């Protein structure tokens, strides 16, 4: 069931924004949910973030080219079609009302964070966005986050933009001030782990959105299993969001590396085939 590409742009080095035509999905998606995408007929199935949808049936995806399949997706242009888009998958974010919340995004994690922040603001929350990137060029969706939040703070590892350092410093400052009702965290696993530990220290409830390895995305393969509060849960069906303080991030990190050697081989293959 091919899905036509309506729009495509590069947001940063290796980061792409792509709008595909999927009217029913555009209507049904909610903040926090994701899709499984298969660019072509022999491609792998990969989970991707939906950042937004519009009235004309377009669904916006953001992805980073890390392996063969994402490189293959990035090689498609407006007018081409994506072979399969399955969704919306996962539980939508539970959106509280009229609170004070902090949304922390690291790197590409800002993409799934954006719809969550928008929904939180719409529900009457005061939303502070904290965005982090290695360097200024890798920061994405700053403008969009500024309209989705009342306030945005930025940290870069090299100090090329915003404050120098990690998002955890900014989060700590905020938690020390007090009055934060909930923290939403999306980003690389070490960043999410550090943020989760901070929220635990300050006893503030926090939610992290995970991006585990999965195949079907509907609860069938069990590949995305993660330990939450000592219990095995499936990211695709029970998640992708879980209470941050209860997630076993070390296990998650280890499990995300299961196919690392294979991914490397596939990247080389993609380069040989002229995809990246």
């Amino acid at each position, binding site marked *: 069931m091919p899905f036509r590409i309506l729009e495509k742009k590069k947001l940063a080095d290796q980061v792409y924004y792509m709008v595909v035509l999927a009217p029913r999905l555009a209507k049904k998606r909610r903040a926090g949910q994701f899709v499984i995408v298969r660019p072509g007929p022999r491609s792998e199935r990969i989970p991707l973030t939906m950042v937004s949808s519009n009235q004309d049936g377009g669904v916006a995806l953001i992805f980073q080219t890390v392996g063969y399949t994402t490189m293959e997706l990035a090689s498609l242009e407006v007018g081409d079609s994506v072979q399969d888009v399955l969704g919306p998958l996962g539980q939508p974010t539970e959106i509280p009302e009229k609170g004070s919340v902090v949304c922390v995004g690291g790197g590409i994690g800002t993409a799934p964070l954006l719809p969550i922040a928008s929904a939180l603001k719409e529900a009457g929350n005061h939303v502070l966005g904290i965005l982090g990137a290695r360097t200024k060029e890798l920061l994405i969706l700053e403008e969009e986050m500024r309209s989705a939040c009342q306030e945005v703070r930025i940290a870069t590892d090299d100090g090329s933009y915003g404050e120098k350092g990690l998002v955890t410093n900014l989060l700590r400052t905020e938690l020390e001030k007090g009055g934060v009702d909930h923290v939403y965290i999306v980003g690389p696993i070490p960043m999410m782990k550090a943020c989760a530990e901070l929220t635990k220290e300050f006893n503030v409830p926090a939610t992290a959105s995970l991006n585990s390895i999965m195949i*079907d995305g*509907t609860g069938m393969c069990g590949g995305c*299993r993660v330990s939450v509060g000592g219990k095995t849960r499936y990211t695709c069906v029970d998640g992708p969001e879980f209470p941050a303080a209860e997630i076993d991030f070390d296990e998650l990190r280890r499990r995300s590396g299961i196919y690392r050697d294979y991914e490397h081989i596939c990247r080389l293959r993609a380069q040989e085939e002229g995809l990246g």
Partner: protein
Amino acid sequence: MTNQEKMKIPRQAMPEQDPAVRRRNFKEVPLGYSKETAVLEATRCLNCPNPRCVTGCPVRVNIPGFIALLAREDLSGAYASLIKDNSLPAVCGRVCPQESQCESMCILGLKGEPVAIGRLERFTADYHRNSSRQEEDETPSAPSGKKAAVVGSGPSGLACAYELLKAGFAVTVFEALHEPGGVLVYGIPEFRLPKDIVKAEIDGLKKLGAEFRLDSLVGRLYTIDELLEEEGYQAVFIGSGAGYPKFLKIEGENLNGVYSSNEFLTRINLMKAYREDSVTPPIKGKRAAVFGAGNTAMDSARTALRMGFEEVFIVYRRSREEMPARAEEIHHAEEEGVKFMLLSNPVRFLGDEKGGLKAVVCQRMELGEPDASGRRRPVPVPDSEFELPVDTAIVALGTEANPLLRQTTSDLACSERGYIIADEDGRTKKARVYAGGDIVTGSATVIKAMGAGKRAAQAIIKDLM
């Protein structure tokens, strides 16, 4: 020919690929009967006035009927008779546990060997598919103006769709994956059920007018209530399969190297990870332990051999007698070199410093008193723990109920374990919603799911016409 003469004909053997060769390829193992062999085997049938074999078939195929036509060399007549009762004969002829169903009831089996019903079913369907007579396939009956949705394109959904199409319903089949067929495409391996055959059977349904909507997860893209209230379907059949893989719930189960059979098989079957041109990572290793002894466990073990594993063990807590797999699968696995570690129960997994699987600790079991299932309950032998060094573990213990439809459908009554409650005819507690297959009964067989789909279709026809 008299019955005496018929009974002198031996049951015809099925030619197979040599075990030493096939254990490293994905081509089909049994090669099928020739026409001559099939006709000879069909001649063995005594055509009993009260055929017991039919009572052993979950979809009630008129077995003596199609076999009699086969014996008279009326091959198209045999197919026409078979397809009336069974929408997927090429599939059932390959994957049904005939030895515990139709063939177990055959009168010839009392003194000798039963008629090879499954092999004849397979031959009849294959001959039809490979001959040029396919244009004569039946056309759908006059449209009834009724519209039904089928959720899931596995065995129960396909069987249900077939019956509804024949009754003139417009049928839409919703499938979450990118290919139709459910467990027939993601679960059962190519060497046991070639995917071209599944595709041909599905093409047959398309010719009858079925619409397949892929990448469509009911519960998310459409809810059951939306299908009924907004999308104009008069009835919905849920044949979604149980879905959720069951794990052992023991220490170390989330180590890298421990997989569900669903994941292991889906990578290979649906995503074609065994082929050079696939980009989905296959699961590789040297020594694998497979837990469970059903068909899925045998499929996993035999697939592991084909993926290049050097040693593959089936670890099962009961004895050979209690193994739930088809006799043929156990026999094939053994011939190919799968090692059976019976009366052994996994206790915990051991990892290396990188979090990869290193070994599984098992304990010896012995059989005690019969349990609720009537099988003797395995009990641990004290101080009998031992280590089995493996780098890969595949858990094939069946499935649990996927909660999605339960969570997203109003008034859908479910059991405590999450299975949908439906009566014998597939009627759920919710009006115009029917269900059958693994999401009602828990893990079962292709043919039982097909039987449930067929009965539900008959109930839908009765309730709506």
